[in-house]
């Protein structure tokens, strides 16, 4: 029997080709339709844990950022254990003046907690957190062994 590539298989081996193509088209259409929703939070997968986090790195640090407008920095607890970062807090809305009538209420309040496994080992005792304009930034210095090392090539004499 002659060998042929799967993609080159003769028509007799793919009776559902038309259907297959239609399925692919539908699938693409669906992901295009829902792409806007899924795409905005690609890693969260619809779990919906507050707050959403942005994590980035440079050569020496990992940075974890969260938008927490109206949260007092004193209400945020940050804990590092091993390579797990835990974040906990509460957003309290100040009591509005008495006898007010609301036109709109969109801002949410309540408790939140999140934990995150960090991609590299970090120096837990050198973690720093800052809060500026409602954005929390946690800087986690990478452990020495996790930092990129430049190795000089020795030239043999």
């Amino acid at each position, binding site marked *: 029997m002659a060998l042929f590539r799967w993609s080159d298989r003769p028509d007799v081996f793919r009776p559902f080709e038309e259907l297959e193509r239609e399925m692919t088209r539908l699938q693409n259409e669906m992901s295009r339709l829902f792409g806007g929703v899924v795409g905005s939070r690609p890693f969260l997968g619809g779990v919906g844990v507050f707050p959403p986090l942005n994590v980035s790195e440079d050569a020496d640090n990992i940075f974890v950022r969260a938008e927490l407008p109206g949260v007092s920095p004193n209400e945020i607890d940050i804990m590092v254990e091993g390579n797990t970062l835990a974040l906990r807090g509460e957003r309290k809305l100040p009591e509005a003046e008495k006898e007010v009538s609301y036109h709109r*209420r969109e801002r949410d*309040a309540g408790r939140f907690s999140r934990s995150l496994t960090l991609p590299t080992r970090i120096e837990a005792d050198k973690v720093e957190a800052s809060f500026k304009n*409602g954005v929390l930034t946690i800087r986690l210095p990478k452990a020495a062994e996790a930092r990129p090392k430049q190795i000089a090539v020795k030239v043999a004499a």
Partner: protein
Amino acid sequence: MAEKDMQVRDKQELQTQAESTRSVPVYVPAVDIYETEENLVVLADMPGVAPENVDIDLTDDLLTIRGTVTPEGQAERMLLSEYGVGDYYRQFTIGRIIDQSKIEAVMKDGVLKLTLPKVDAAKPRKITVKTK
């Protein structure tokens, strides 16, 4: 109220006909608006916006709130991105009962508080019934 857990709300991106001159996305800030006897108060969540980068404009009855962010960590490599960073923009139509010269704006921890004092004519007047 305080026992409630916070829910994730996706940031709503602004759909507009006008094109932005900046290459950052523009979001609709979440707001609370309430009215007291003296004022109309607007609270808007605009994390990442410095106080000097808030622009408030009241023309006739159109109130425009604009906030521009200075994104941090541009040189870093993104590992995980669960929220977008961008500017904020929102407009409201309010009745012409505001004393424009007395508008106050305070920005704290990424929350804008706008106090719009009502003009005297719009304040409720309590009329006491005189007895003869």
